[in-house]
């Protein structure tokens, strides 16, 4: 993976988020405060516009730049959480010109850890972590086993989807949805949905890239 892949992935995630606008928005209106989509889209647009600054730098630095940019454009609770995620990924990849799958998996785990720490949340609390934690753990395991890219991406997508759907039956104790208590039962968490959409977009981009 190099910085060009990261930029391509950013474009893929942005397109996927926009394509899922209606569903993400209606989930957030049901149990959030209605601004999740707008904030994420604003962040995606800022990163796409950052492309010229990203291309000349190594992946670690690119992730840090992405994190700092998101921190100053998204706002809300998502800004510090997603900002910390990329900044920590960047720190983990410092000095690595072309990280391999194992190195990328370790960076992703560090990023997810940063969200846990900053948000003081863990799995089972009806947040984006319900998708990110198990998916990142699975990637670490599969990377260690040396899975091929196609298998790895298919399994990651399955893991992300199942865990996204599982948030439907959770009672939120973190995030905006927690103000609703049991009233949020029966609704998928919008942050978990966005995370699943992002995992799918990156996996699809990677497997399409491998096929071509």
């Amino acid at each position, binding site marked *: 993976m190099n910085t060009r892949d990261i930029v391509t992935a950013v474009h893929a995630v942005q397109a996927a988020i926009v394509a899922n606008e209606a569903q993400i928005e209606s989930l957030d209106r049901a149990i959030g405060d209605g601004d999740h989509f707008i904030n994420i889209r604003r962040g995606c647009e800022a990163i796409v516009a950052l492309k010229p600054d990203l291309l000349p730098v190594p992946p670690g630095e690119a992730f840090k730049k992405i994190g700092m940019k998101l921190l100053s454009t*998204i706002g809300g*609770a998502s800004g*510090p959480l997603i900002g910390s995620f990329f900044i920590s990924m960047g720190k983990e990849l410092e000095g690595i010109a072309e990280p391999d799958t194992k190195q990328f998996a370790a960076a992703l785990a560090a990023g997810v850890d940063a969200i846990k720490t900053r948000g003081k949340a863990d799995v089972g609390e009806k947040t984006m972590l319900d998708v990110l934690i198990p998916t990142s753990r699975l990637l670490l395991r599969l990377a260690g086993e040396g899975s091929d890219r196609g298998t790895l991406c298919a399994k990651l997508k399955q893991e992300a989807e199942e865990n996204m759907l599982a948030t439907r039956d959770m009672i939120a104790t973190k995030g905006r949805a927690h103000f609703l208590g049991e*009233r949020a039962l029966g609704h998928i968490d919008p942050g978990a949905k966005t995370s699943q959409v992002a995992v799918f977009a990156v996996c699809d981009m990677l497997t399409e890239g491998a096929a071509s």
Partner: protein
Amino acid sequence: MKKFVNDVDLLLQESLQGLAAAHADLLELHLDPTFVTRKRAARKKVALISGGGAGHEPLHCGLIGQGMLDAACPGQVFTSPTPDQMLAAADSVDNGQGVLFIVKNYAGDVMNFQMAVEMMDRPCATVLVNDDVAVERSTHTTGRRGVAGTLVVEKLVGAAAEMGASLDQCKVLGDRVNSRTASMGVAFTSCTVPAAGRATFDIGEGEMEFGVGIHGEPGRRRDAVRPAQELVDELMAAILGDLKPAAGSEVLLHVNGFGGTPLIELYLLYHCATKVLAKEGVQVARSLVGNYTTALEMAGASLTVTVMDEEMKSLWDAPVHTAALRW
């Protein structure tokens, strides 16, 4: 959605430009990053900075000026501002006495201010306001929300800072005012975030959200609208149950409109609330009625009670000169 908008992405900036122009004697607007400061920088005092999502006007930008805030960082509507805004505001208004951030207890605001504090290399402290008794702290780990009581904290700490209180003293005072302040509100209608274009929540004719937050987020329950006195009785029971003021206590009673309820109703609520306090043997020493911590055009109101002592009364009475509050 019918709103006065040119380009929804420019709404906040154009509104701030109007605010700064209308109060050109008081305010100065800085863009990229966005923050508002006093026109004439204060000399030798702790710099008070607040901020939060827009949509609660006049909070916080309308409370900048002598006797209150030195700067405020507005975020997009109902979206927390970002650390770069807070750092730039601190650079602009810190005059060597340190910076006190006054933050409403919402996850986004807390995290963004926290990151600013981590990145800052000057003396600073944070007062976290969590006056809303609707959401119980025991079952919600992020705790109670910060709502209309924030104005009381900003006014009292603002007065103390103006009189030369140190950063530590301001922090202690802010925490004390917060611990003696409790609020709760009711909404009759939703609000519409301009960028979203639709009502934040659906609510039937004849229904109310009891214990609503200042973004239209749910409170304790959805219920049928009842006579005002009954609603006030229940709100005050929750507020006084939290504060437990001794008989004979003096309080500040603040009736806050959410933006869509006329003053005639807010004064009616004030009347109802004084009856409850009189019954409890609590004396209203100071009052404030009006739209100060709003939720865009939401119809509804909140009640805030602060248990006052002599020092707090004199700080409340101290001169203040801001766009929205002045005496």
